[in-house]
């Protein structure tokens, strides 16, 4: 049980690659923090610095009040679950779980009791005598989790632990990881590039891009008020529609009172699910409207995605409930309520409010 604090943490790899550019945030005790961002944005590097597998170029990392920058991974009292599980191939499941405890000179009967308890929690009791290669992907994943919980560490660190599983298993393991973390109450930091995983697991979402933290918040906060155009396009699927506009273009799209657009223009955003199609040209009062030509329609059952072209070539996605949608080539008007609009500075770096 511990809180994890990062203070202006930087990592510069050999060859002057700055993978993490000064990251500061706290993960309160017992919270499930998810680091999400596109591949290569420095999530793993950050996690590995917390684990102690990578040196910290600058800044301070604290676990449970103790500065751990110079402390060996094994002394940090953390457990890590790797993407490829990293189970010891020559040891059976029991020994995989027990190995870390043995190295810490835990008494034999305590090891046995803790291994069996972890196996019971993860429902892998009948697999204890098997070698990793005799297990399915999902079972290996459980063993990797078991190796983490058996140690009762201050924090769990996960590096894309589900990305080697098939889609169905990924969903069920996701639910289990969340349940497990809830019941154990262990501070967790979880790295993923999958925004859906991030949204569903996090108590605290940290969105990263190119070595920087773009936004920290509750998942729904991040969804509803993305702090930058990057976050807006990264969180949510399909991504938010973003259009670069100047004041005149904005006025043409939005009825009623003018919306504040700075001199240099702005990026206007609206989520596909906040758009509706108005076939007769009528629209919510004071709202946003945009004329589209339907380019493609994707029906996935409960919902339908309509891909539209605007005159100047931009693509707009509209997400409609159900299966009714206009035919390809139809001229339609996409409409949205004005409070559903997001505005960002012209370079996308900041959200404009008010």
């Amino acid at each position, binding site marked *: 049980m511990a809180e994890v604090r990062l203070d202006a943490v930087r990592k510069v790899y050999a060859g002057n690659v700055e993978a993490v550019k000064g990251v500061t945030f706290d993960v309160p005790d017992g919270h499930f923090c998810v680091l999400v961002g596109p591949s290569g944005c420095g999530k793993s590097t950050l996690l590995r610095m917390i*684990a*102690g*597998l990578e040196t910290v170029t600058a800044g301070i990392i604290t676990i449970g009040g103790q500065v751990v920058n110079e402390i*060996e*991974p*094994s002394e940090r009292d*953390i*457990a*890590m679950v*790797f*993407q*490829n599980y*990293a*189970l*010891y*191939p*020559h040891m059976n499941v029991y020994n995989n779980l027990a*190995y*870390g405890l043995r*190295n*810490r000179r835990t008494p034999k009967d305590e090891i046995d009791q803790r291994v069996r308890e972890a196996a019971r929690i993860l429902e892998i009791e009948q697999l204890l005598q098997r*070698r*990793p*290669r005799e297990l399915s992907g999902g079972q290996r994943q459980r063993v990797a989790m078991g*190796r983490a919980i058996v140690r009762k560490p201050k924090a769990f660190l996960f590096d894309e632990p589900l990305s080697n599983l098939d889609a169905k298993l990924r969903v069920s393991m996701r639910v289990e990881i969340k349940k497990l973390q809830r019941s154990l109450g262990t501070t967790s930091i979880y790295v993923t590039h999958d925004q859906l995983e991030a949204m569903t697991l996090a108590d605290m979402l940290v969105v990263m891009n190119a070595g920087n933290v773009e936004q920290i918040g509750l998942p729904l906060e991040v969804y509803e008020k993305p702090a930058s155009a990057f976050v807006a396009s990264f969180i949510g699927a399909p991504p938010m529609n973003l259009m670069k506009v100047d004041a005149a273009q904005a006025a043409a799209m939005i009825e009623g009172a003018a919306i504040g657009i700075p001199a240099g223009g702005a990026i206007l955003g609206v989520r596909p699910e906040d758009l509706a199609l108005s076939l007769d040209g009528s629209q919510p009062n004071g709202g946003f409207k945009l004329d589209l030509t339907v380019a493609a329609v994707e029906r996935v059952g409960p919902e339908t995605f309509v891909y539209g072209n605007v005159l100047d070539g931009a693509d707009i996605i509209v997400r409609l409930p159900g299966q009714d949608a206009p035919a390809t080539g139809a001229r339609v008007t996409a409409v949205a309520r004005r409070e559903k609009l997001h505005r960002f500075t012209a370079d996308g770096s900041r959200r404009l409010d008010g």
Partner: protein
Amino acid sequence: MVERKSIGNVIPHVILWIGIAIVAFPVYLAFIGSTHDAATIANGQMPPTPGPYFFENYYRTIFVGTSMTTREPIGTMIINSFVMAIGIAVGKISISIISAYAIVYFRFPFRMWFFWVIFVTLMLPVEVRIYPTYKVAADLNLLDTYAGLILPLIASATATLLFRQFFMTVPDELVEASRIDGAGPIRFFWDTLLPLSRTNIAALFVIMFIYGWTQYLWPLLITTRDDMQTLIIGIKKMIVTSDALTEWQVVMCTVMLAMLPPVFVVIAMQRLFVRGLIESEK
């Protein structure tokens, strides 16, 4: 399989049988030779079937030695050869696995330089550096000792490179998991790397044992006393060239006996290979 004996199946079999015959014939001849008495072999009319002197010949070879010379029986030679071959195999494997471990897993100054130095020794087998090596061994009083037989031969670039290649295929996450699990460098080596290298060790052991067992030039130089010589040297010395008194039946017994340990090593290790191949993770 039996019903599908087409011509395409027969030809490879014929070729294989010819190959086996070519390899087996001298061995068979040696065996026959080891079961006749000296006179039968010496008159050039050795029958193609085993003779009645099997036990007598082998007993003499192992415990008595050739009668016309002052040579030792081969009992001691077998022991010497064993010590040398096992010493070389174990020594080479130990040294090279540790060197490879250092080169792959540790960052130290001149790491790549050391790697290339080891690499270059591929071009320096003992035959090339025989004079300086002899001088060093002599200065260190290693003549006529087991250490002198073994130590100069145990540095092995081949084995080091092989282990390096293997270690580089071991996922980094295993090292990292070990570090988090509180296993330092030595524990990681013993608990993880060594068990994973089992198959490679077995393969190298076979090769290195045979290499050590069949060494000729080095033991010839470094040993002068009869009780330190190895089996291969012993065979050479039994074959007397100055007069016609070579006791071929004893030579053939020795040859047969010299062949057995490598054969056993191959058979024993082969089972470990196969098991290792089936069980290994990657």
